[in-house]
């Protein structure tokens, strides 16, 4: 396994269009699991394909284990690639599927046997070696698929949307298995995904991309709790963060014009605001406390909608066009029409510059 470096990596498909990937700088440590996360067209798949050698590099460098591989043939880069669809060969047994790439590279049979046994043990598929793919569960196929990528002992494992075709319940289980596998084996891994939960659950660090540009590169909880900008804040989190425009009024409150929403400005928020009079305010549904009684810093409102989802209750309070959603543990005390008071703790408030979208920091 090895360290992987992107230096000002650029992919430009057409000179008249903005680059698909714009000067990406990332340093991925040996053994680290990185998620490239973003919506379609953000540049994540382009990055993966350039790393694998399926696309040329327009500018910048890809460095694997200290060696620039821009012009290295794909098969000599030390890359193991596992695609979304398993692409196992149906007529071959698991053993032969695993051995396939080694045979293609004319590795000696004794060496092949040794490596198949080794990888089968890693992936807990030893009992399945003589079965054909049709007899395997989705989870088992996934492991064989990853095993096929790993058997050549790549420097870097690339996973392209590895779970996106699975149903929800299986996806959660497979996610755990991949997490487990990485903890045990620590192979340097880059995973491309559009699923923020998958990225959060699996990655040591997440690189969030949008429009070909890196937005933030940090641990899952940092990205979640301290998003660099409004894009990152809105992209991560389920239910999504409430983000809306507010004005600072002359009574030191943040207000949504034309509504009852008026949030007293605390010292902390005041420092973030500086001289600004308009910002975008972001708060996650779990960061809003709903109460029957007012406090000095609470915002009054009327419950407009309530959802009981078994493991949580979501309460919606409407302010004009904006429906502010708060999440609580499961409770049946809230009903539409009920007067409530919402409290926002400083640490749960995010302020974004209304022009740049950057999160304001003190």
């Amino acid at each position, binding site marked *: 396994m090895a360290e992987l470096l992107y230096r000002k990596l650029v992919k430009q498909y057409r000179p008249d269009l903005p680059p698909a990937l714009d000067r990406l700088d990332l340093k991925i440590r040996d053994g680290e699991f990185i998620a490239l996360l973003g919506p379609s067209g953000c540049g994540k798949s382009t990055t993966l394909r350039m790393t694998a050698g399926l696309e040329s590099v327009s500018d910048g460098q890809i460095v694997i284990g200290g060696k620039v591989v821009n012009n290295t043939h794909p098969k000599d880069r030390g890359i193991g690639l596992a695609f979304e669809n398993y692409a196992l060969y149906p007529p071959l047994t698991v053993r032969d599927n695993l051995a396939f790439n080694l045979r293609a590279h004319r590795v000696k049979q004794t060496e092949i046997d040794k490596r198949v046994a080794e990888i089968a043990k890693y992936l807990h598929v030893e009992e399945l070696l003589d079965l054909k793919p049709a007899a395997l569960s989705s989870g088992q196929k996934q492991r064989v698929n990853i095993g096929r990528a790993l058997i050549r002992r790549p420097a870097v494992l690339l996973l392209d949307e590895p779970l996106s075709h699975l*149903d*929800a*319940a299986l996806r*959660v289980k497979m*996610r*755990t298995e991949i*997490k*487990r596998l990485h*903890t045990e084996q620590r192979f340097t891994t880059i995973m491309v995904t559009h699923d923020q*939960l998958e990225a*959060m*659950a*699996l990655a040591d660090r997440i690189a969030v991309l949008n429009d070909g540009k890196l937005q933030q590169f940090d641990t*899952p*909880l940092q990205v*979640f*709790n301290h998003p660099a900008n409004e894009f990152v804040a*809105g992209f*991560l*989190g*389920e*239910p*999504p963060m409430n983000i809306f425009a507010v004005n600072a009024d002359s009574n030191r409150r943040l207000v949504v014009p034309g509504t009852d929403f008026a949030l007293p400005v605390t010292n902390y928020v005041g420092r973030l605001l500086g001289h600004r009079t308009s910002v975008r305010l972001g708060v*996650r549904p*779990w960061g809003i406390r709903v109460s029957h009684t007012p406090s000095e810093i609470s915002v009054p409102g009327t419950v*407009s*909608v309530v*959802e*009981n*989802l*078994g*493991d949580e209750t*979501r309460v*919606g309070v*409407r302010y004009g066009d904006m*429906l502010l*959603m708060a*999440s*609580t*543990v*499961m*409770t*049946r*005390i809230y009903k*539409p029409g009920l007067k409530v008071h919402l409290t926002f703790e400083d640490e749960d408030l995010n302020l974004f510059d209304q022009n740049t979208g950057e999160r304001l920091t003190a």
Partner: protein
Amino acid sequence: MASVELQGLTKYYNKRRALENLSLDIHDNEFLAVFGPAGAGKTTMLSLIAGIATPNSGTIKIGGREIGGLAPADRNVAMVFESYALYSQFNVYDNMAFPLRSPKFKLPEDKIKERVTHHAKVMRIDHLLERPIQALSNGQRQRTALGRALVRNPDLFLLDEPLSHLSANLRHSMRVELKEMRTQLGTTTIYATHDYREAMSLGDRVAMLNGGHLLQLASPDDVYFRPASIDVAKFFGDPEVNILDAKLKSSGGSKLSLHMLEENIPLPLPPDVVQVLNEKHTSKIQVGVRPPDVRIAREGDKQAFHATIYSFEPLGTRSILTLKAVDGSLVRALVDGHQTFEMDRRTQFRIDPHLLIIFDAESQRFLARSAEFSEEP
């Protein structure tokens, strides 16, 4: 407004069974969520009611009147599809007025204006009537499509996965908006979805279908807290419910304790659960434990199970912790997201016996859950 009665409804497409002997009543003005995975029979059920497909057997009554022989147009049923099918060349007003100008209604323009304006207010799009469809947000489009269906004053509303093509974030907000407007629809509604949160949020009751069969028809609370079978339990909740093998032991008098994961940690069962189990003489059981009900315990807690941390997956506000118990079972817990856990470390966890969902191991059907414990925090 009308009630709906389905009696013995069966539909085969060629030899493939799509719906088998479905009988259920929908109350006047009820919002029924029909929930199930792909191929469950949801769309078939809606198509039979709308008259797009004909059942092999069974009857459909709307407002007490059998409608089997009626053409789709004469059933006074409005179906809203996933893709809204709005006319992009028209503005909101003309889209909503469209059905009323059709040969079937042919209302005078002043009457049309009255109805469109009224329903646009209900849908909160009265300020958008002049806007072209392209200039609308997704939420506004949804409301326009609903408004267009409403102006006809249908007896019954059929919604087939209206949110399934949206991104996750948008689906959340649209679902809540729909719920907010729900009471104002004032029309009996059948809503098909494969998303359990949509079903629980929107439905007065939930009809759970799978493989063409009705597995349970109950309130959202009941399908979640008292699921009819292990199969149903697994469809509600994310991550999925933990299903564990368990044994019952008499612990003196009429008391029963439940043993799972570790032989020497008895879980005393609440009296109401004991009563049901004694009545049914069930000895082989399985237990459902929802991941949020698995709590990390203090070290040395005598009532807590031992485990190592098999996997820790932070999701932001909450995290999924997969615990490997002493007997090798994997138990999923949903825990507060502020704490981090190291993989492979030892830990202990507790499960409150009041929260157990107890199933018959043979039939896989629901046996008991304590009513003593309210689900309030």
